[in-house]
């Protein structure tokens, strides 16, 4: 009684290609209409364009770092090198990784996914983009006119008294960008609470919405702490009020506590949305419901909560008491549990599936592998006795790049390819997309795996020069960075080509179940002709997709 394989996977009724149909792109083509738009879809695209620009500037800084390190003596002057890694850190963290999926992709798809016509506060949404664009411009200007060498962490008292860079300008930029984070977070929280379509109960929400929701909560709760901290730093630099500078009676460790109280939860801002994207991609391309939906959902919430209680693991060798180190280490292990749950669930989703390997799925599978490596090495650095050795070395650099770049950036590319037909109404060249995905995976590992070894050999971070016996691994890493640079540039070309020449996409090219696919591509200005009525949970692939509003 064997069941013959291959069920008919009809790629969803071929509607007439939506060419000249009125949609959010054709509604009004003027520049003015873009700059004053209140449409979440357009704002999402504005975010993606702006942030991609910062991504490439931050990437150029990374390229200079890797070029410098080809030679043990350092090819760049130290002052330039220090400015480059500072620029790289500031741009990538605040002006790419934090906002890219929530404010970029999230802005575009979250309202569509819950069957809403827009976000709750469209004007606030537009304001958030302006704030981010202006603050990013300010950060870039600070870097362009001379830069700063504090590292993205602005540690005290170095920042207070011992550096002459454009610190205040950079602090102001980061401070300002926080308002964008808070506005976007607040907007999504209210949108998720208030604007779900009829029948879209909490347990019917796609996991992407849950993760953006959890991220938004962190945005709103953590960002003010960063703002307060940076403000105190600036006040100290300007007015010599001793807050963090021991020479003025302040406490430098206090700065680290406050900074990481924000910056550790921010790590979850930088990975939760990626987890959300992957939770959409894997069921869709495996033609299977997500394994353990509730567990994936609640592990996201768990991450957002426990993520607030582990900041001290950035300070195991910074002068905190042994006992608090013990507590923070234990909490750090706890926070790894929800991440492990997710990895197992994604893997289990593949079981019994009808898996296809389109480009978004390649990114998703790459994400799971790289995130697993990043997560497992996270255990290494959560282990006190080992962290005491590799803290502030390349081991840590490699670890968090596996999460942030291997994880989050892969997820972003996966999501971008997945929703590209929805955003633009066009398909891209599948083969080029697959080549780029594989090249990114390969280049990434070549860049960052050697850094684990360098870290274990004891190479501290932020060195412009190093002992010659570490050159081999550094050269490998730099070679990987070259591959990665090409791989990241590739999508610019084939996606750019697709914008003008790509084949028209139907409303649902992947045969997915989410509400965003049950409306034309590109969607009409107000998303849905009629408000969808949701009748079932997400990911009902049997393997035939059953739309959430069917």
């Amino acid at each position, binding site marked *: 009684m064997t069941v013959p394989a291959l069920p008919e996977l009809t790629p969803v009724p071929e509607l007439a290609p939506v060419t000249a149909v009125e949609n959010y792109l054709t509604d009004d083509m003027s520049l003015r209409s873009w700059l004053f738009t209140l449409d979440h879809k357009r704002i999402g695209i504005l975010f993606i364009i702006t942030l991609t620009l910062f991504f490439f500037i931050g990437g150029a800084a990374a390229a200079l770092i890797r070029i410098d390190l080809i030679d043990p003596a350092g090819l760049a002057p130290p002052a330039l090198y220090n400015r480059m890694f500072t620029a790289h850190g500031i741009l990538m963290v605040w002006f790419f990784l934090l906002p890219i999926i929530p404010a970029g992709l999230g802005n575009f798809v979250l309202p569509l996914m819950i069957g809403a016509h827009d976000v709750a506060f469209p004007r606030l949404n537009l304001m958030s983009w302006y704030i981010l664009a202006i603050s990013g411009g300010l950060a870039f200007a600070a870097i362009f006119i001379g830069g700063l060498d504090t590292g993205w962490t602005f540690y005290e008292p170095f920042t207070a008294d011992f*550096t002459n860079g454009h610190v205040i300008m950079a602090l102001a930029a980061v401070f300002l960008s926080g308002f964008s984070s808070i506005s976007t977070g607040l907007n999504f929280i209210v949108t998720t609470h208030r604007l779900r379509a009829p029948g879209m109960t909490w347990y019917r929400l796609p996991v992407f919405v849950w993760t953006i929701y959890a991220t938004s909560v962190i945005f709103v709760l953590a960002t003010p702490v960063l703002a307060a901290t940076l403000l105190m730093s600036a006040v100290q630099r300007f007015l010599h009020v001793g807050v963090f500078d021991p020479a003025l009676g302040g406490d430098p460790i206090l700065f680290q506590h406050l900074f990481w109280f924000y910056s550790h939860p921010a790590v979850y801002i930088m990975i939760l949305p990626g987890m959300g994207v992957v939770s959409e991609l894997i069921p869709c391309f495996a033609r299977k419901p997500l394994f353990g939906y509730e567990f994936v959902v609640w592990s996201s919430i768990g991450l957002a909560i426990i993520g607030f209680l582990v900041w001290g693991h950035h300070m195991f060798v910074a002068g905190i008491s042994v006992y608090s180190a013990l507590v923070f280490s234990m909490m750090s292990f706890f926070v790894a549990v929800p991440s492990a749950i997710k990895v197992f669930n994604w893997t*289990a989703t593949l079981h019994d599936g009808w898996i296809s390997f389109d480009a978004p799925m390649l990114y998703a599978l790459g994400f799971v592998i790289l995130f697993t490596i990043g997560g497992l090495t996270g255990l290494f650095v959560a282990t006190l006795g080992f962290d005491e050795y590799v803290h502030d070395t390349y081991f840590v650099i490699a670890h968090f790049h596996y999460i942030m770049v291997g994880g989050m950036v892969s997820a972003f590319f996966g999501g971008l390819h997945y929703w590209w037909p929805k955003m633009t109404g066009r398909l891209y060249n599948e083969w080029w997309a697959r080549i780029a995905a594989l090249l990114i995976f390969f280049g990434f590992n070549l860049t960052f795996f050697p850094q684990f070894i360098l870290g274990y050999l004891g190479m501290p971070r932020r060195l412009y020069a190093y002992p010659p016996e570490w050159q081999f691994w550094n050269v490998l890493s730099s070679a990987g960075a070259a591959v990665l640079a090409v791989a990241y540039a590739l999508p610019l070309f084939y996606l750019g080509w697709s914008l003008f020449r790509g084949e028209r996409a139907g409303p649902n090219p992947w045969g997915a179940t989410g509400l965003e696919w049950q409306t034309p591509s590109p969607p009409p200005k107000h998303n849905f002709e009629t408000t969808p009525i949701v009748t079932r949970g997400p990911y009902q692939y049997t393997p035939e997709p059953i739309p959430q509003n069917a």
Partner: protein
Amino acid sequence: MTRFLPYTASTLSHEVNWLYLGLLIIAFCVLLLVVGMMATFCVRYRRASATVRGGPVKSFRFEIAWTSATFLGFIGLFFWGAFVYLDARTPPRDAVPIYVLGKQWMWKVEHPGGQSEINTLHVPIGRPIRLVLASQDVIHDFFVPAFRVKYDVVPGRYEDLWFEAITVGRYPFFCSQLCGTFHADMRGWVVTMEPADFAKWLAAQGPSESLALQGKALFHQYGCSGCHEPRSTIHAPLLAGLYGRPVALQGGGFIIADEAYIRDQILMNKHIPAGYPPKMPHFAGHISEEDVLKLIAYIKSLASAPGSAR
């Protein structure tokens, strides 16, 4: 040739090596499990494959199983790491103190005998050494990969780290916390020697006054002796036997008079000992970190003297 492993040159290095090996094995097994399952499923359940697919699987048991398995594994790792860390952070009582002062961009080392060196640290093997770390300016971090020890050197306070070298050799140390333009150049060498050779090396450093004696001179120069010597008529605590003892504080409570305490008292009169209203001027900004270290060495040398901290 490329090196694949760091030097292993202290007692702690072995503990950390084992811990690393344990972590590596666990990580490798988990990675193999996840990637293996992914690969198997991707091949077996690729869209074109005719493999029979089963019905829906109840997820609950799996969830409980892998959640509790990871949880228990993590608890085990936590304890293992915690024991190694406690070991690394608890210097033996008989550890020899050596003072290390970090400043942009060099390390100055002061041995108790008054010998000092720059960007080099000579130590004997087979004896626990405790480095007392101080910074003149920003946060530095003293990191000796071969010993698997590192700790931030924070201005305004003392930190310490300890190790016991086991092999004779020359091992690099680094600054591991961004401290400015030439952060990368703030490195040097630990030279480990047989105790006899070390003694010879110390002796060969030329006649030098011990840190404590240099401190004694400073004790008079800065006017400390005017109040803190037994002859003084001013009501101030005597310092003989102070080091290492608990001091009763105004308003209750005790504090152990360690290096950090003595430093805070000299510079800021931070704690008020019971019965001594704060009269002493603050010396912060008037005494360099180096001189503070010498004063502390002097006060420590009084520890064995009879009498008590009044």
